[in-house]
């Protein structure tokens, strides 16, 4: 439990909390990015260099940008501050607190955390894993999951493209007419 770990943990959780509570959606997205980056730094701190960098590349470089784009394309930047939380807000918060209580209780009392953690606490240096080893493991032992993931990514890409494809508006007089397409606004 080093100081660096503590600082990064606080940063990450603060980013997460800010992302879930701030009023403007773009601020939420930026706070979410802080949480993602903090997690990447936590991975690096734990010695998982490749995973940390992959997290940074995928989450900060792609997902955060995607979320930002989605916010702007759905006019999320101008949501009125009255209706940020849903009516079931308090119930949700209580459920989350209950989940945290259970998880925390499990962590603090479990023998796994104490047994392994106590044993590994002496093992201060991170296990040395080169990118080469990771690549070989991926290509030998986990080659089938890798292929499945590749297939799934392709399917997801095609699906996302089809979903985002602008549908042809059928002329339906009964349907409530959409407001005239408003331009991109913050």
């Amino acid at each position, binding site marked *: 439990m080093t100081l660096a770990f503590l600082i990064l943990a606080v940063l990450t959780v603060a980013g997460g909390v800010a992302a879930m509570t701030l009023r403007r959606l773009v*601020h939420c997205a930026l706070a979410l990015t802080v949480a993602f980056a903090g997690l990447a730094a936590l991975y690096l701190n734990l010695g998982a260099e490749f995973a940390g*960098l992959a997290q*940074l*590349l995928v989450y900060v470089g*792609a997902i955060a*940008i995607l979320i*930002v784009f989605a916010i702007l394309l759905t006019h999320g930047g101008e949501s009125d501050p009255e209706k940020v939380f849903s009516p079931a807000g308090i119930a949700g918060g209580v459920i989350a607190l209950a989940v945290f209580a259970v998880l925390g209780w499990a962590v603090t009392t479990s023998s796994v955390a104490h047994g392994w953690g106590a044993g590994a606490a002496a093992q201060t240096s991170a296990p040395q894993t080169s*990118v080469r080893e990771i690549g070989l493991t991926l290509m030998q032992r986990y080659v089938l999951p890798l292929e499945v993931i590749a297939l799934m990514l392709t399917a997801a890409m095609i699906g996302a493209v089809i979903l985002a494809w602008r549908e042809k508006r059928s002329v339906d007089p009964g349907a409530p007419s959409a407001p005239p397409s408003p331009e*991109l606004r*913050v």
Partner: protein
Amino acid sequence: MVAGGAADQVFVNLDHWIVGHTPVPLQTLVSIVISIATIIVVFAGLFALTTVFERKGLGRIQNRYGPNRVGPCGVFQPLADAVKSLTKEDVVPRSADHVVHYLAPLVLVGVVFLTYAVLPVGRNMTAVNLDAGVLFFFAVGAGTELAIFMAGWSSHNKYSLLGAMRAIAQMISYEIPLILSSVAVIMTAGTLSTVAIVEKQARYSSTLAHWYVFTPWGLAGFILFMIAATAETNRSPFDLPEGESEIIAGYFIEYSGFKFALFFLAEYLEMFAVSGLGITLFLGGWSAPFSFLTWIPSWIWFFGKLLTLIFAFIWVRGTLPRLRMDQLMNFAWKFMLPMTLIVILSAGIWHFLTAAVVGPKPLGAVIRWLVCALVIFAPFITLARTLERGRKIEKRTYRFAE
């Protein structure tokens, strides 16, 4: 072989000497501070030089002199610019999101400086020798997009938002060919570490170095990499995000004074960083092209190559007009992406066409070269033909002008 002699390691020895003379508990800290300070000073200085050389070079291309007033031949021009930008009023729009507006240039410059950590600027001269160096470069570089978005959105100006959206769309599109063209090198070198990639290229068979740019896939990959890098750093002809004629300055339209200077700095630093990565991946990093030139210090080689690439950037900027948005996107997805995939294929073929397959040295090497070149060139011709067939060039007719 003591390549480069004493001059080669002069900075490394200086660093060791300084660290050796500090008290032991402070040594790590001092070593880190020295690395950071060196990177900042050297590359910020290079930025200052580049601004004046770019303006002079563009001037020469347009048959002008360029700046030549401040100091001898105008070399103190950056100093004058610095004084100007530091003394200008820092205007922040009233409706801007102040915190994000303030943070955006800082995040941008910080992120760009981070990417320099893995660049080997000379033998034993890498700030951090990461096992996943190239991945680190791209992962950290992804932060620039977010910083640009922050700048564009927080200014609360439709032009800056448009510029930011353009910049992000462009950077994401061109990041794919950028990474894919580096994949060919990573595949052949078998490592993600920038230091190891350079060391793989710093070997010599007879006199010629094993630079990847001397292979057909390396040459094609290098060209594709540099095109993608130009787009990635928003430089002309891909400078749509800041197109003056339509969206004035794009995402930094509402920035003035020192913050504007920071954006300017970040843009150039990005260019140096991505050029440095191109040098590391394709042009042999700090190594000399011929074995009889190894007496020149390694850092001179690196910075010489960097200056050459910067000149190429300036040259291209002085030549090509700005693209249109749809042309830009079409180029990325219809040309760059397939070509980079073909380069990866060619690199794979190169890897397996060893001497055992194609025969002994002189003839075998030629066959290997030709086969790999053909694998790239034939699809290139086909692709170019296909793209040109779809392009209709007609005489324009004007409805109202005539």
